[in-house]
């Protein structure tokens, strides 16, 4: 083989070897252990601190029993307390650690209730341009008992 072709093929071989080398460094050793992902990621996820306590923890021990009993009977019972009030694990463990104030902005309610063609027609939806004069939804609607105006 001609020397220049030898050089070209050596260069090509070096590029391929470099790729294999970089790949061996970059792809985690636990990749493919259980499936097409990094096996160690399961441990990493398990070790994340728990942030959400769940809705039942709000209604337990008489803390928020009244509002809980209103909410659990109404249509927003499928929307957990922490959906609007934020993660509460710290607050449940220590009542002095207050959660963030509830998100009651118009856009936040709109994530579910602004009119979208993809939503079932029976689902309560409003056209934000003509409904409610741009006021916050909670001005008229009680989020714990949404039909109560």
């Amino acid at each position, binding site marked *: 083989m001609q020397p220049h*072709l030898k050089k070209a093929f050596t260069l090509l071989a070096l590029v391929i070897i470099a790729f294999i080398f970089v790949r061996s460094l970059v792809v985690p050793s636990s*990749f493919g252990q259980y499936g097409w992902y990094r096996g160690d990621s399961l441990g990493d996820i398990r070790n994340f601190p728990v942030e959400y306590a769940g809705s039942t923890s709000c209604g337990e021990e008489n803390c928020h029993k009244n509002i809980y009993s209103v909410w659990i009977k109404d249509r927003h019972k499928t929307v957990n307390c922490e959906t609007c009030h934020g993660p509460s694990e710290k607050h449940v463990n220590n009542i002095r650690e207050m959660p963030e104030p509830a998100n009651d902005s118009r856009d936040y309610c709109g994530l579910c209730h602004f009119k979208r063609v993809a939503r079932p027609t029976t689902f309560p939806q409003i056209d934000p341009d003509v409904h409610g004069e741009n006021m916050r939804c909670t001005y008229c609607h009680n989020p714990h008992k949404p039909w109560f105006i």
Partner: protein
Amino acid sequence: MDNLIWGYVYPNEVEIQWSILIVLYPYITGLVAGAFIASSLYHVFGKQEIKPVARFALLTALSFLLVATMPLLTHLGHPERGIEIMFTPHLTSAMSGFGYIYSFYLIIVVLEIWLSFREDIVKKAHSSKGWKELMYSALALFSYDISEKALHEDEKLAKRLAIIGIPSAAFLHGYVGFIFGGIKANPWWSTPLMPLIFLMSAIVSGIALLILLYIASMKIRKHAIDHKCLHSLAHYLWVFLIFDVTLELLEIISMKYESLEEIDIINRLLSDKIAFTFYGVQLTMGIFIPFVLLLLVGMMKNRETLKMIMISISSVFVIIGVFAMRWNVVIGGQEISKSLSGTLTYVPVFFSQEGVLPAIIILVIPFIILRVITYILPPWKDMEEEVT
């Protein structure tokens, strides 16, 4: 939004996800494959009349190949993650092959260009000074042997590479068609003919682009056009147009003849949603008019300027027609609902990551790259010789 939707559609279809950038992806890879196959008409099949554009075709293929990934990376965002497809390809998806097929083809094209330009590179290395000398010497890999024996070896290897190159160009583009053809939930895409349709339209768009670039470069350089070469390219364009239209019509005719459950929505798609881009642009402008014009070119004697104009118009129409074909496949396929009883509408936006502006920018970049490459490796020598 309501007026963009007809009938019953599923909620997750309302927003059309594959935008104009995904139209561009098969379009650009098609131009690459087409230009490469045009160059191999000389390199492999020894068609001497193509020689003036053979090396230029390789440079065109490389320029477009270098941007072939851009539409996908812009569409998906996070281009830094693109390499993951090569580090951990998930083999159950046809798309996972992209990184390897693309890289393999890139190596073939670069090697092919290097071998065909090596003599020029070595001569330039000898005749230039300073950083240019260094650049050309590096490009020559600091080997300056351009004896007859060495060049003969180069030619032999280049021919072998081109022989490997044709199936890999066909594979690169056929596989893009396979990705669409393999989507069984979509009746507009799901057909085993799709890889072949994509390949044939790729070849016609590549040849048409080459014709236009050849005429444009000769006009810019104020040099006479080799009409024999031009007519030969026009002839191949005509032949591949026949294959292309046969396959495209075969698909539609068999769909209509079989009249399976999806025929109603397909009819609605063809008669309403993409009627203009399909019958008007893709078939009439992109295939029928160029077909007739090129047929006339083949029949006419003398009148070289008129023939050149007719070939140029045909090439422009073919290039627009093939773009419309990609549009009709990619966008058309998403404008019918998987429910088979509703349609949606794609409204392109201009300024956005998925918009028309990035698409235009991505389409302009290969021409800039081509200008730079032709400055470093001028293919003019063989484009401008032996013109009578």
